[in-house]
C-alpha cells in the first residue's frame, strides 16, 4: 500500500513514505509543498497545467505515480529562476503579457523550456505546434508565442 520514495525536485531530495497510488503532481504539490504546478484535468491529461520536467523532459505530472519518479529528478516552475534572477522565459512572459489568470503559466513555461532547449530553430508555426499539450484559456496564445520566439532568438544570436 505504501512505498518509500526519494524524489529530487529542483535539486532537493524529498524522501517520503507515501501511498503507492499517490500521483506525482500531488507529491509535488502536497508533499514537497511546491504549488506552482497546477491541476486542470480529472484523468485525461490534456490541459498541460501540471507539466514539469522529468530528467530534462517535459511530462505531465498528473499521468504518473510518484513512485515511478523514485530516484529521478524533477524540475518544476519553482526551479526556473536562479535566486532573484528570473529565467529569460519568465522575463519574456512578463514583457509580452503572456499570462492573464496565470493558471496555465507554469505548465506553459515548462513546455516552452523543453521546446527551446530541444529545437535550435523555431518559427511561429513550430512554436504553436510545440504547445499543443498546453491549454491557455485566457491569453489567446499569441503573446505566449511571441515570448518564446523572443527568447529563442536571443539564444540563437
Amino acid at each position: 500500500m505504501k512505498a518509500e520514495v526519494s524524489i529530487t525536485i529542483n535539486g532537493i531530495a524529498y524522501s517520503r513514505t507515501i501511498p503507492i497510488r499517490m500521483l506525482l503532481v500531488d507529491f509535488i504539490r502536497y508533499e514537497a509543498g511546491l504549488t506552482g504546478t497546477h491541476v486542470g484535468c480529472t484523468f485525461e491529461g490534456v490541459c498541460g497545467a501540471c507539466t514539469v520536467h522529468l530528467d530534462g523532459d517535459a511530462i505531465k505530472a498528473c499521468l504518473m505515480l510518484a513512485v515511478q519518479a523514485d530516484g529521478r529528478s524533477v524540475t518544476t516552475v519553482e526551479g526556473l529562476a536562479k535566486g532573484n534572477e528570473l529565467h529569460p522565459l519568465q522575463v519574456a512572459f512578463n514583457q509580452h503579457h503572456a499570462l492573464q489568470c496565470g493558471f496555465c503559466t507554469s505548465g506553459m513555461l515548462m513546455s516552452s523550456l523543453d521546446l527551446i532547449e530541444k529545437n535550435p530553430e523555431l518559427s511561429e508555426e513550430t512554436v504553436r505546434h510545440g504547445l499543443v499539450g498546453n491549454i491557455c484559456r485566457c491569453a489567446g496564445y499569441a503573446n505566449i508565442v511571441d515570448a518564446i520566439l523572443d527568447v529563442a532568438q536571443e539564444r540563437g544570436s
Partner: protein
Amino acid sequence: MSGSNNKLKDKQADGIGARLPRKEDIPILRGEGHYFSDIAVERQLHVMFLRSVHSHARILSIDTSAASQMPGVVAVVTGAMLQDEILALPQASTSAGLPGRLPTFWPLAVDKVKFHGEPVAAVVAETPYLAEDALEGITVEYEPLPYVGDMEAALEPSSPLVHEDWKDNEIFRSNYQALRTADEHAAHIKEARRRIAEAPFVVKQRFRTHRCGVTALEPRGALAVWDNRDGLTIWMTTQRPHAQRACFADVLQLPLSKVRVITPRNQGGGFGMKASVYREPLLVAHLARCLRRPVRWLETREENLMSAGQERDQIHDLELAADAEGNLVALADRIVADAGDACLGGSWAFPIANVGGLRLPNAYEIPFCDIELRVAVTNKAALCGARGLGIYPGRFALERAIDMLSWKIGMEPAEFRRKNFITTFPARLSTGLGYSNGDFLKTFDRLIETVDIAAFRERQKEAWSQGRFLGLGIAVGAEVSGVDSLSYVSMMGTPSYASVEVRVDPEGHVQIFYGDGPSGQGEETTIAQVVAEELGIDSENVSIIVGDTQTSTFAPGTVASRGAAMVLPSVAMACRSLKKKIVRVLAHDVAIAADEDDFIFADGYVMHRGNSNIRLSFAELAFRIVMKPINLPPGDSGGLDERATFESTRGNICFGAHAAFLEVWPETGRVKIERYVTSDDAGVVVNPLIVEGQIQGGVVQGISNFFFEEYVYDNQGQQMTSTLEAYKIATAADVPRIEMYHDAGTPNPTNPLGTRGIGEGCIAPVPGALGNAISDALRPLGIEITDLPVRPPTLFRQIDASRQRKQQAS
C-alpha cells in the same frame, strides 16, 4: 522644500496609457501564485460529490451505510438530510430582478435528479483519495423519468415537467415591451409586422447556436472554516464574493457579519463561470459548521464540464427587413433559449438569455422590433454566464442576417452596415436598451481602412475561378461596458456601483481596497497606473487588496466589463479627493492660496506650477498628514484615506468591429483563418498591453466556441463531453494571431477617465464574422451558415449537397 531636480515631467511615465508589463506577473511566473488549491488549513477535511448518472430520475433510495464505514470517512450526507438543516434557494439575496420563475433547490438533490451530473450525495473524509473511495460505497436507486432535452419540445404542453411544482417548463418569457404601454406596444408590433410584410428585401431564417462556454482552466473550489466567534470564513473561486456571502448568510441563516468570503489572490480564470451561486460551496460551508472542522472541496474537471459554465444554446427565428435604399426598417425574432434546470443562485439562467434579446439590435438603427423570448427548463446543467453574457447567439443570428440581407439587396455588407449604424447618441433601441455615447462609424472605418475590401474581392473572384473558396466576413458588436445599478438591480437583483477605498501610509505607499473577485484582468497594474497618473507616484508604490468581504464594502463582482469602466473611475475619484486634501495642507503649510490645479503631481513629488521652490515629495506629504496631523487647515483632520463610489450612467458601451479572412476547402470542409482583424473602441486605454490581451484572448475563445467546443447531451441526456479530450478547446496550433487596432476609440464622457470596458464584449462579434466569412467564401454554392458549431463534416455535407443540387440542375 528645495531640490536639485526642479524639472518635473508633466506626465507620470507609468500612468494612463503606458504599455506597462503587469505587476502581478512575477510571483505567478515563479510558481508563487496563490490560487484556491494552494490554500490549506490544519485539520481540513475533503468533500467529494456523488453525482447523478441519470438526466432525469426519481431517487427511490440512497444507502450510505457502507460508505460511512469506510476508512477515513467523517460524514456522508444526502439531500434529504439537509432539508431540516439549511434553507433552500431561492432566498432574498439570490432572487433575480426579472419576473421569472425561480426553482427551489438544495445543494444535494431531493426526491429527484434533474440533470446528468447533479450532486446527489457527498462524502467528507480525511483525504480526497479516501473520499473518492467512499463514493463507491454509496448506492442510489433511481427510477428513470423521461428526459426533457429539446428546448422547443419542452415548451409544448405535453412535455414532461422538469420542476414538478410548475405547470409547464417555461421559466421566463419577454416581449421587450420596454417603456411602451400595452397599447403602444401592440401598435409597435403591428408596425414592425407591416414593415416586414411590405419591405422589398426581407431575410427570414432560423439560426441555431450550440451549448458551449468559456470554462476557465482552474476549476471551482471552496474551503470553509467555522469559528464560534467569527462565524464562517470561506475561501472560494468566485468573481462575486459579496454576492456569495449574502447567499451563504441566507441559506445558513447567519447574519452577514458572521460570513466572510475571500476570493484567493490569484484566480485561474472566471469568464462568468465563477459568477453564480452554486450548490457545492453552500454544502461545504454547512459541513464546516456542523463538523467543526475545515472542509475543502476542489472540483474535478469532470464535475466542472458537467455542471458549470454552459451557455449559448438558442434558436432564433429571425426576420430582418430593409427598404429599397438599403435602410433597415424592422426586425422580428422568436427566440427560444435552453435554461437547463436553471438551479443557479443569483443568475437563474433566464436573465442571461434575456440580455441576448435586449441587446439583439446591436449597433443598428432599427426603428421597429418584434422580439419575443421564451426560456425553457430542460434536464441539462443550468445555463450559466459565459463571457459575452447572453449575446453570442443573438450576435451570430443578426450579423448573419445582415450579411444575407445585404447580398439580397446587392450591397457590400460593410457598406450596408455603415448605412445603418446608429449615429446619434444617446440612442435607445426599440427593446428599451439605451446607448449613452459612442462613434461606431469611426471605429468601423478604421477596420475597413485596414482590410481593403475591393482588393479582396478581386482575389476572391480569381480564387473562385480556380475552384478555391476565399471569404471575408465582417461583424460588429455594441457591447456592455459596466452596468448601472438601476439596470442591475432590475435584472440581477443587486446593485452595480464600484466602491473603493484608497489608503496612503506614512511612507507614501498607496493601498486600494475593494470587493470584486478578479481572475487575471490585470487589475493590480491598471489600478496602479491610475493611481500613478493621479497622484504622480511610481506604480510600484501601489498595491491592491481585493476579493475579501472583510476588507471591503459591497461590490457586485468582476462581471460585465466593470473593471476599466467602473472600478478605475472610482479609484481616480478617490485619488482626486486625496489630491485636494494634500494641496490644502501643502498650501496651508507654505501659506499660499492655491487649489490642486496649481500643482503638478509627478515623479513622486508635488510641485507648484508657478513656483518650483514649493516642492515636496509625496512621501513627505503623506507622513506630514498621517503622522503629524497638527496645524492642519481648518476643517481637515489627520490621515490620508478616501472612499469613493462610482455609479455608472445608463447605457455605457464599447464597440468592436471584426473582419475574418479565411479559406474553405470544399473537398474536406476544412476552414483556415488567414487573417483576423479587430478595431475596437475601448475609450481611453489605460494599458494597451492589457486591452490587447483581453481582445486576443476573447476572440480566440470565440473562435474556439465556433469551431471546436460543444457540450453534447445524447438522446437520454447523458453528458458526453465531461473530459477535455471530448470537450475540445483550441490549442495554440488551432487558432490564428489576432491583429488589433484600438486607435479609433472615443473617450467615454460619462466617467472621469473616459474608459470603456472591453473584456466582456470582445467575443461577441466572432461568430458573426466567421459565419459571414464562410458563407461569403461559399457564395458560388449558395451556402449560408446558420447552425453552430461549424465543423468540417457538416460543412462538407453542405458543400457536397449543394454541388450535387447544382449538378442535377444543370
